[in-house]
């Protein structure tokens, strides 16, 4: 990795010096004017709308789970700027290899809320994202997805395609061996992969300080010979710039990059988790001041470009999302065959026999009624 090949932000915000890329502050004031990406008002408005949509969908998902109409769900609250900035940069042909807390990016790639609701209602058909191009299913097994992204990167390079792979992991995931292995493979193979660590400060209850002795997570890129940068993950513009730069770098054939999106999980790890047990209210309160939606809104107000009727828009989104949820909720069809059908491309006799045995039980049960 030659230093002079690096995009300037990767040089100026050296993770070894624990610098962090930030463009607007909590009050929406510009702090790095030179770095402000050139975006027209409509695009900025659109970004805010997408973030709002994700937030409302997320709130509703939690509420559906609380009502017992959906199972375990992984909230996104507070991390929307990362997801939407990635979503606005990722192209149709690019790959998305998600972890499980990237709702806005999934939606940008063509995944529907109905599918997301269906998945969290316990149906694999929801998780297949079948109409979304180049999107892998959600990865529950921590960190393993990074290898898949690197492998896709190899394939993209081998087939000489103009495609870039976006993949995500959490702060806790960086302790997994697969994290280091995948970044190492990606470095050696010089593959077009943009790795994002969503550092939301906690892996369930375990803080980052218990995961690593490194000064930050972006610095881990140094050992693997790929560029890394720590970015304010609650600053839409900083995330946008990071992704735009990373995409160009990866497309140019120079290899992989690591982005640490420094953020905070305002909600719970999953709907089964209670964060009040392991973190202070004051900490949450401090991070609420850095809410990515509020920051972007303040920026827009400061610039005089805010013209969203937020309450009306919220109602509109709620109706849309509710409709998608109802469609997912009404989809209760889960035939027995679904268990067996997708295990192999040609179903082995062994599986046919087991299915048949169960069907015989079912017909016996039917007759006993």
């Amino acid at each position, binding site marked *: 990795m030659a230093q002079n090949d690096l995009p300037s932000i990767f040089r100026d915000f050296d993770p070894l010096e624990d610098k962090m890329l930030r463009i607007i502050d909590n009050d929406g004031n510009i702090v790095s004017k030179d770095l402000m990406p050139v975006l027209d008002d409509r695009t900025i408005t659109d970004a805010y709308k997408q973030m709002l949509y994700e937030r409302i969908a997320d709130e509703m998902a939690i509420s559906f789970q609380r009502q017992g109409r959906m199972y375990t769900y992984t909230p996104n609250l507070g991390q929307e700027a990362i997801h939407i900035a990635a979503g606005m940069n990722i192209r149709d042909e690019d790959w998305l290899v998600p972890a499980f807390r990237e709702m806005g990016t999934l939606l940008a790639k063509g995944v529907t809320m109905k599918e997301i609701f269906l998945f969290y209602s316990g149906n694999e058909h929801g998780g297949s994202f079948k109409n979304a191009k180049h999107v*892998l299913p959600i990865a529950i097994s921590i960190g393993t997805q990074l290898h898949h992204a690197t*492998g896709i990167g190899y394939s993209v390079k081998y087939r000489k395609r103009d495609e870039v792979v976006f993949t995500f992991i959490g702060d806790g995931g960086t302790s997994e061996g697969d994290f280091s292995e995948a970044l190492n493979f990606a470095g050696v193979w010089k593959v077009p992969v943009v790795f994002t660590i969503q550092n939301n400060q906690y892996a369930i209850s375990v803080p980052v300080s218990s995961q690593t002795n490194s000064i930050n997570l972006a610095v881990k890129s140094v050992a693997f010979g790929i560029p890394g940068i720590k970015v304010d993950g609650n600053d839409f513009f900083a995330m946008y710039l990071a992704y735009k730069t990373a995409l160009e770098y990866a497309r140019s054939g120079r290899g992989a990059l690591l982005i640490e999106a420094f953020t905070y999980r305002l909600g719970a790890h999953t709907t089964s988790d209670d964060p009040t047990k392991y973190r202070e209210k004051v900490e949450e309160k401090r991070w609420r001041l850095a809410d990515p939606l509020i920051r972007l809104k303040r920026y827009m107000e400061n610039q005089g470009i805010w013209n969203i009727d937020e309450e009306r828009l919220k109602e509109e989104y709620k109706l849309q999302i509710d409709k998608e949820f109802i469609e997912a909720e009404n989809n209760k069809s889960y035939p027995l065959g679904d268990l067996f059908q997708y295990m192999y491309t040609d179903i082995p006799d062994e599986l046919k026999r087991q299915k048949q045995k169960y069907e015989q039980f079912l017909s016996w049960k039917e007759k006993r009624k």
Partner: protein
Amino acid sequence: MSIMTMVQAINNALDIKLSEDWSIVVYGEDVGFGGGVFRVTEGLQRKYGVERVFDSPLAESGIAGTALGMAVSGLRPVVELQFEGFTFPAFNQIISNVSRLQNRSRGKFNVPVVIRFPYGGGINALEHHSDSPEALFAHIPGLKVVIPSTPYDAKGMLISAIESNDPVIFMEPKRIYRAIRQEVSDEKFTLPLGKAKVVQEGTDITLVAFGAMIRECRKAVAMAEEAGISVELIDLRSVYPIDRETVGRSIRKTGRMVIVAEAHESFSVGSELIAVANEEAFLYLEAPPVRVMGFDTVVPLAQGERYYVISPDRIYYEIEKSIHF
């Protein structure tokens, strides 16, 4: 036709597939420049280039995980893990993703990956170089697990494995890598996966084995013949799916079964075959099926292997006991 060892037959199968299908890549530790520690991939990098046949970093999880990534994006990777004892760092990727992604994605993605590795004992090796972990892999839904016992089978089964759209664990009995020479066609041919082979027909007892144990079983069969016992020898070839039809048919004919395998006896392929005997031939059994298998111990180092490695006379001993049950 050429006379080939198993190493040469596998090399030949890889060569044929690499030459006819550009989407195939072959990689692993030492497989590129060095041609693998057993020389299975020798000459392939020179012929097909470093993009298609290459050395990966030394990390088995990475080898299996990146293979999945390649497989979902248009390639057909054939990866080598250097020894069966080093498959375990890759186990998480195999059990959590390689075997499951097709089901998880409801068929949106296939995972046409072949994971090859040498296995088995009897070669006076260091620890982790003599194990037989086939049951561990066979227990994972979504995988096919196959083991050839001859150069001919190795070639035909490997080509089928590479052409399969499902992930295949291809286990190579390292003890007989070069011990058996056989005439093998130079042309491309395939053998069905999931089908056992009746090596020799017989009427008194069924002997089921696979991999390096087939050679030992042949010697035991010769001993039995001298004693006037007619043995039907079955080479299982595929551990999963298991060919219950061929095994069941044979037991219904002979009423007796001896299973021979190098792995630890408990919760093994031997255990599964006894379940098959129970389900397919219960009323035909003249004697309880028995297992001649490794102990539930760590495979010992060279000096202790004389106890662990299964010899033909130990197989014959169980055949005779079963006949006289």
